[in-house]
């Protein structure tokens, strides 16, 4: 079974919007891929007029990962990054003397592309417009930027919906619980970022990996 991957449209956002955006996207993906009995709750975004379907049972885990990512983004400002949500099956590998070794078979991966920009970079562009206009122009640009981001988030959500419906045959049998993994950039990453971790895992799993 091939691993289906989906590269979501890149979103340019500020650090304070990370939580809203990632919660919205991750929960939407989980909602579409959690085929066991779910009781979603409607969650309103804080900065956007978007309501998504949240899964309470995953709230804690998602928030923890988001916190880690926010911490990473603070130390790596103005960088493009990815958060990867992977779904996999675990299968027992060859039983060994020291116990069974499980093997992860990834069947789907979602790449959430983010470009976290610094607000300072944004406000500098207004400095030449005069003190009297800074406030008003800044507010205008903030609202237009946010409106554009909201529109982009809508696009991403519809992208998720379309992909989730187009690619359905590879989904394994509905389990009681599904295995997943949320990967964020590592603090030790330099040039390659988290990709090294992903590649290492894929190589260890023996699963053909396609991007």
């Amino acid at each position, binding site marked *: 079974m091939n691993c289906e991957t989906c590269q979501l449209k890149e979103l340019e956002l500020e650090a304070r919007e990370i939580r809203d955006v990632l919660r919205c996207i991750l929960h*939407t993906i989980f909602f579409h891929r959690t085929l066991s009995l779910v009781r979603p709750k409607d969650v309103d975004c804080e900065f956007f*007029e978007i309501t998504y379907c949240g899964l309470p049972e995953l709230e804690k885990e998602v928030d923890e990962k988001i916190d880690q990512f926010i911490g990473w983004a603070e130390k790596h400002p103005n960088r493009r990054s990815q958060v990867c949500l992977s779904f996999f099956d675990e299968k027992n590998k060859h039983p060994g003397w020291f116990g069974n070794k499980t093997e992860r078979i990834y069947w789907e991966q979602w790449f959430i592309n983010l470009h976290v920009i610094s607000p300072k970079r944004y406000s500098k562009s207004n400095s030449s417009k005069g003190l009297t206009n800074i406030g008003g122009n800044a507010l205008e640009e903030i609202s237009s930027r946010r409106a554009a981001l909201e529109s982009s988030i809508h696009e991403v959500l519809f992208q998720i919906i379309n992909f989730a*419906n187009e690619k359905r045959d590879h989904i394994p049998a509905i389990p009681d619980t599904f295995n997943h993994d949320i990967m964020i950039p590592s603090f030790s990453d330099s040039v390659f970022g988290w990709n090294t971790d992903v590649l290492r895992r894929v190589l260890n799993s023996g699963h053909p990996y396609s991007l």
Partner: protein
Amino acid sequence: MSGMSDSAGGRAGAELMVEQFHLKVLHAVLAVRAPRTLASAVPAASFRRRDRWFHLPLHDPPPQPGAAERLEALAPGEPLVVDVHLAPAGGGGVGGEVVERWTVACEPWPDAAGEGLAVNRSYKHCFTLLRSVYAVLRLLPAYRVFRLLCANQSYNYEMGHRVGSFAEPFSRAEESAMRSHRFVPVETQLGRLVVSVQYLPSLAAFNLEITSLSPSMIIPDYVGSPVAEPMRAFPASLTEAMGSAFRPSYQQQRPHSWAPPALWPHALLQQAKFSPPPVLYASPTPSPPNFPCGYPQSRLMRGVSAPMSIPQMGERSPVHRQNTLDPSRGFMLPPPSPRRVGETGPVGAQESPSESSWLIGRMEGLRMADPYASSSPRHKGKDSKDESGRFSALSSCDSPRQDDLDDIDYPFVVDDVDTPVSQPGSSDGKEVGDRAGSSSHKSQDAQVGSLVNLLRNARPLRDPSYSSQTSRAESSEVAPTSSVMSRRTSDALEELQSFKEIRERLLSRSSAKHQEPPEKP
């Protein structure tokens, strides 16, 4: 339902699945497109088995029977169309414009192409499709309008829906204004399950605004804030609870007992004219009284200016009712002259109980009104010395409501001092009253004494042996009782005891300051 994913199911299973899918989509659409008030929201109940179709139970109200019946009338391949429209409020849907059109259909195979399709596979695919419908319903602009209308029914538009198998085609202009989204269909044995939606990308043109305030709830027995309506009389139902002892004037600005203590210190000095400072009259019960008319207690908890809690008939001694004051007279000390008592004889003989209560209340208020009181009214008693001889905010040690007083300290509002309320003499030998003094010296102790004397000589409220009870009260400790009748008397006794103590303290203070012997009548 989970069995659908395991068994072949056959055509019957496919038909059932398609039917349930239609119903589920209809349910999902109407759940977030049929505005309802929050009050009418049905609390979430446990899911029924049939709610678990497609592993997505929906707690929201199911479609109305009429809507569901239309599903049964659908012919194979006939679409289910749900139009969501916005129409001017109050028009019954006339003049509405369709803002969304949901279409669910199972397009039959032209041939037997779907015969080999497994039902469980189709069923699983329906899971994802239904979730997508569920998510998109919340992403479209109509969802925001739905939320607004649920929160407030007073908008100039109302949202309605039409369910059927046929919908009037859009005009070219309407079609061009709308966007459409077609979900990836699910292949079943019967055909392709197709869900699509046409929607207006923006509803700003409707200019939603609230046309009127929500209908006011008329509170027939509302007792407003004395600050706002100082001259408003209390409703008759409350006055009945208080009995005829109260004069109407007292009912206008009765201080309440439940104001937060933080407001009392300055409230006493600042609010005398307009609203009664918070008053905590000595009540035997630690909790707010239960009004017979069902007057909600919460209305009393409005702060400093809320009316005093009104005791239920029979649960309060007249003394407590008498503690209601006339704050309109201001925050002043009573006059020292005891003439009134002498003039009228025993108070009870000629004055109504309400007047007695008023005077008693004034005495109580004196305890609060002392500008020389140390630090705050919270200061409890015995060590608080007043240079002027006035009352200080003495302790509540004699008040039955010890717990309340412990919390919010001293309760009483001081009223007008212009009206003479006491005179010496004609005492029955009690110390307090005898010491009220006929002195013309404008001392607070004299005033208190006169008041005490007045109390002592007051007409028995209920019990003919009231005077004897008061004598017993000198040495008796205050203790709250649950008996209605004994409570009234005990309340009076407690009050009297407290007066005595006040008197004694003031006298001692006065003597310490002025080095004058206490006056004796």
